[in-house]
């Protein structure tokens, strides 16, 4: 198994940052996730330790005060070099419905003009890619998705909106994402996804985890409204494919 050159940096007295080469690359992310699994199963137990992977980094946070940084750094390097090969498990591809109708995709016309594409072409491009979840942060359940087609790269809005609705599907730079709750935001809104990305009444409040994949598919307003009702009565099932079967 290929080992990357990793570096370790101090992050206060509770935490440590492990970094892989500074690139957005799926192989790097998967190597991080394998190392997380190895550490959890062999050395650093939950809940005392928390693991926050994002892009090319892994932050290890302990609830213990005053970690011995030098000792831990040496151990982690040793563990990484000598770790046994563990396969990944439990990754999923989630298919999420998006209603791109104008009522929800309030910036579609504007970015179609900027990108010199038709609205249909934007929807086609947005739904043709399979995105990788490189991190979850900013807001509870907000996914950092990689894999946006270059033709859809559009700068964030000059003036952020004070209120973006929950479920808004948006574009900015190399990124696309879903606002999991109402919040201020400067991304370009192209549709709405009615699947709640965060539900604090569940033990696992966010069905997606880092390393999962996302694909969007278009639905009509009628289907969108039906799905909202299905969510409310609890019969809606998100389409899912196991990746590590």
């Amino acid at each position, binding site marked *: 198994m290929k080992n990357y050159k990793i570096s370790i*940096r*101090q*992050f*206060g*007295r*509770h*935490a440590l*940052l492990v*970094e892989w080469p*500074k690139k*957005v690359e799926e192989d790097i992310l998967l190597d991080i996730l394998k190392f997380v699994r190895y550490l959890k199963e062999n050395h650093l137990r*939950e*809940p005392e330790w*928390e*693991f*926050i*992977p*994002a*892009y*090319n*980094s892994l*932050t290890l*946070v302990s*609830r213990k*005060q005053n970690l011995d940084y030098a000792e831990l750094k040496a151990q982690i390097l040793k563990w990484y070099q000598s770790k046994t090969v563990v396969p990944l498990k439990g990754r999923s591809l989630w298919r999420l419905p998006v209603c791109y109708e104008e009522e929800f995709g309030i910036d579609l016309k504007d970015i179609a003009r900027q990108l010199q594409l038709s609205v249909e072409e934007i929807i086609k491009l947005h739904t043709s890619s399979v995105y990788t979840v*490189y*991190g*979850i*942060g*900013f*807001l*509870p*359940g*907000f996914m*950092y998705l990689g894999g946006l087609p270059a033709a859809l790269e559009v700068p964030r809005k000059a003036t952020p909106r004070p209120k973006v609705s929950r479920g808004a599907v948006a574009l900015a730079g190399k990124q696309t994402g879903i606002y*999991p*709750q109402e919040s201020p935001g400067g991304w370009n809104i192209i549709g709405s996804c009615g699947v709640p990305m*965060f539900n*604090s*009444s569940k033990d696992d*409040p*966010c069905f997606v*985890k*880092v390393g999962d994949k996302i694909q969007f598919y278009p639905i009509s307003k009628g289907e969108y409204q039906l799905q909202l009702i299905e969510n409310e009565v609890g019969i809606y099932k998100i389409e899912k494919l196991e990746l590590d079967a």
Partner: protein
Amino acid sequence: MLKILKPGFFSTVQDNGRFGFRDKGVPVSGVMDANAVSKVNALLENEETAAVLEITMTGPTLEFSEETYIALGGALMSASINDSPVSNYTVIKIEKGDVLSYGKLEGGFRAYLGIKNGFKTPAVLGSRSFYFPITEFSSIKDMVELPYDPITDFSPKISEMKVDSGLAKESLKVFHGPEFGELTDGQLKELFAREFTVANQNNRMAYQLNETITGSDLSMLTSATLPGTVQLTPSGKLIILMMDGQTTGGYPRILQLSDKAIGLLAQKKSGDAIRFKL
């Protein structure tokens, strides 16, 4: 029940935090000044997870519907029970119908009301700490009352504590953040030689500072941030993340406040001075 007669400026129920969901983007939350709260809970012989009321700037007016014991701590807010002044870090016996009210802010910024066995608002994802929309409420403003256990038979081992509150302390102990090594000699000098003041933008999510240093144009991939992380923006602004701070960020994380320093900073308000000390 603790009836909320007047909500004051901004008060929330907080415990020691919501752990285990940072990889889903959930901030840890919890009390901003853990130095004060650990003493309040110790006096009441509470578990360290007992929830307290965190009171910012101006206090509420509260009426107790059952007997219990309380202790106050943190900021000096001229608290009184039925109009008789009460002191911080003292166990106070509460009778049915007693009214706790607050007056002028005399020092610090966040006061704490601890209660025997803690407040019993619902725990969500393992914590009672308010963080909207994970919890139903963002503050006590829209609430009528807060639940607690009636207690009649408590004899505290220590009824009073002399506490060096540290409310006036300006020096914040910091450690290296991950990008500390990227700072230039010039930036290091600016960081440690000078005094900074707290900007108007300060809340449970983050404290911004008024004075800037030479900015950083280091390009970063989004990565984890923690309470107490000091971020440096391209324009040279310093942003210190606090307990409700977001779990990831894209700015260099140059310093990390000690736990104690987070508590000290939590007692600062707009215009107050601080210094970083390695």
